[in-house]
């Protein structure tokens, strides 16, 4: 299975050179730690803004790791080989997105409850937070792949990727934070979770095509 081999390759690269998802999680933890320094340590205030802050921290940590998604492969020529291989480039992109999510989105699911604890998030909203991150972060990797592919051939694409991708992240962020906030107020979180999942499901078939088309430009 070349598809699984691609995922395994990207995971191996991530674990051997970048410490797996450790750096992304470290960024997430530090970013969430900055919140009490910025707004003050009042428990009521922190527990009110915790869902949104955790989501913003998750989004930023996903954004920061996007530049490694295609850039290194485009620079050292691996992407040319992958594009020439019998596997469609769309599937290559999808494999890279899955590997990216496994190393950035998935570890966040484990780190988020700990940070929620320090931010005094209400206990009732823990399940909704885990569910919203599990449903929403795959969309971040998939949509982010579009921005990463558009800027893959550039020397300084980092800031541009952020400018292109952040507006696209807005619906995911709004729905994810709404789900957690709703559960904190004893309202059903399911509608927001379903919409979050809908974005991920819509991005799953669409984003790889756009990203692959943009990648073909970068290696042309």
């Amino acid at each position, binding site marked *: 299975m070349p598809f699984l081999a691609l995922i395994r390759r990207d995971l191996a690269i991530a674990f051997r050179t970048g410490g797996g998802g450790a750096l992304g999680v470290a960024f997430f933890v530090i970013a969430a730690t900055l919140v009490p320094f910025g707004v003050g340590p009042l428990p009521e205030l922190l527990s009110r803004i915790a869902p949104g802050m955790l989501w913003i921290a998750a989004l930023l940590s996903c954004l920061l790791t996007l530049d490694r998604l295609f850039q290194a492969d485009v620079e050292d020529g691996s992407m040319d080989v992958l594009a020439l291989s019998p596997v469609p480039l769309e599937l290559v992109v999808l494999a890279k997105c899955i590997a990216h999510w496994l190393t950035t989105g998935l570890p966040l699911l484990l780190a988020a409850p700990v940070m929620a604890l320090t931010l005094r998030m209400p206990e009732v909203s823990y399940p909704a937070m885990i569910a919203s991150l599990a449903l929403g972060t795959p969309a971040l990797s998939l949509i982010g792949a*579009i921005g990463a592919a*558009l*800027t893959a*051939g*550039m020397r300084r*694409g980092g800031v*541009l990727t952020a*400018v*292109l991708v*952040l*507006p*696209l992240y*807005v619906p995911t962020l709004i729905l994810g934070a709404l789900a957690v906030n709703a559960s904190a107020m004893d309202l059903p979180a399911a509608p927001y979770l379903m919409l979050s999942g809908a974005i991920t499901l819509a991005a799953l078939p669409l984003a790889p095509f*756009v990203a692959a*088309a*943009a990648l073909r*430009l970068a290696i*042309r």
Partner: protein
Amino acid sequence: MWSFANPNKFMRVSGALLPWIAGIAVLLAVWGLYQAIYVVPPDFKQGDGARIMFVHVPAAAMSIIVYFIMCLCAVFALIWRHPVAYLSAKAAAPIGAAFTLLALVTGAIWGKPMWGAWWVWDARLTSELILFFFYIGYIALWDAFDDTDKAATATSYFCLVGSVFAFLAKYSVDLWDTLHQSSSMTIGTIATEEKLANEFKTPLLIMIAAFYLYFLTLWLIRVRSEIRLRRIQAIRQAAVIE
């Protein structure tokens, strides 16, 4: 229609049309603004403050329409790879961004006395702001490439991805019930359903037409200068080769 894709024919026809379009735009704007400022009675609730509507509504409408025009150009550019198509999309972007900024600024000036705040995080305002970010991203992406063909294709993809948000901006007031009022102007509805009195509607339609033609004027000027720029580059390259 396809014959206009020929840059030479485009330059000839657009050059001939340009003074007429610009002239009609000026006439309509003068007439519409005169109506809006001196003829239309003050609003029942908002007084003279409602007159900003005659700039705000056309600007907001154009901000969305220009994005859709860019998407159309992007589709033409991706399918037929035609220079006039992608240069048109490129030329429209800064104008669209300016209309969006104008809509946001006039909205803020209108919002301060009526809602008591310059800005509210309401669906219409937020989606309009995100649309503005898309214009900025689009312009930045054009500047980031050295190669025009690559830039044209990449920006076309980005433009089509962003169309989702243009739709959101268009329908946000009808989808979510928030502070910003929903669309109060429909063409062809019966009088009882009409939310906007006719004495407001006519000048507003005139202003929208003026904004349209103003956009068309700027757009044609910008596309023409982009085409000329490409010609200069081609001549320079030829000179270098010789």
